[in-house]
């Protein structure tokens, strides 16, 4: 079972974890990304490339299922305008053993950061706005998985 959703709505983490637990594996690993409210951030706007996002994230999921023996993968990525404390992204993976679940989960979030067509714009309480710049560390983390 692998499923990808690109959506504006929030999601229920407990529901997603329960679905992964029902896949018959020995463990579930997950990552939930949250909007940080630092530095006077009022809102985070996520733009994406609608025609490309879903196929591209599905390719990333395919890569994970090729590398690890996974029984289930779930990816949810939100777009639109989010507030500090809102969930942005969910990655969950289940396998017979913990290593595959934990490693694939880390791989998925690292690759989502550098290989999925999303762009974040910060809106601050004083009215300033700024497009988030990609971080060298994130690109390096994604590259590490190519070794």
């Amino acid at each position, binding site marked *: 079972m692998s499923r990808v959703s690109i959506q504006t709505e929030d999601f229920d983490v407990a529901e997603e974890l329960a679905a992964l637990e029902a896949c018959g594996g020995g463990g579930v690993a997950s990552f939930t990304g949250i909007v940080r409210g630092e530095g006077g951030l009022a809102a985070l706007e996520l733009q994406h490339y609608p025609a490309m996002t879903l196929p591209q994230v599905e390719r990333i999921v395919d890569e994970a299922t090729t590398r690890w023996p996974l029984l289930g993968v779930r990816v949810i990525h939100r777009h639109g305008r989010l507030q500090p404390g809102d969930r942005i992204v969910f990655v969950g993976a289940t396998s017979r053993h913990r290593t595959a679940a934990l490693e694939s989960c880390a791989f998925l979030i690292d690759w989502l950061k550098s290989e999925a067509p*999303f762009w974040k714009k910060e809106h601050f309480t004083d009215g300033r706005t700024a*497009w988030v710049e990609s971080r060298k560390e994130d690109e390096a983390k994604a590259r590490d998985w190519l070794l």
Partner: protein
Amino acid sequence: MAALQILYFAWVRELIGRDDEQVDRPASESTVADLIASLATRGGGYAEALGDPGRLRAALDHRFVPLESPVGKARELAIFPPVTGG
């Protein structure tokens, strides 16, 4: 031959002031970088957005490609800054 659809995202879209446009299809051996350089000569927001290709990334028909890639027979080109999802 059909026109080439170009899409812009993030600050590239804001500086150019449009989401997308159609252009005459360049010669198939033209690269994405060639096309970006030619668009930048329009000046104004185009020059601002596209003047420094080192800050840009691209996709042809929904797949990331290096800027040196030939446009070839692609129907859609997207030009944008490095992605920041997750």
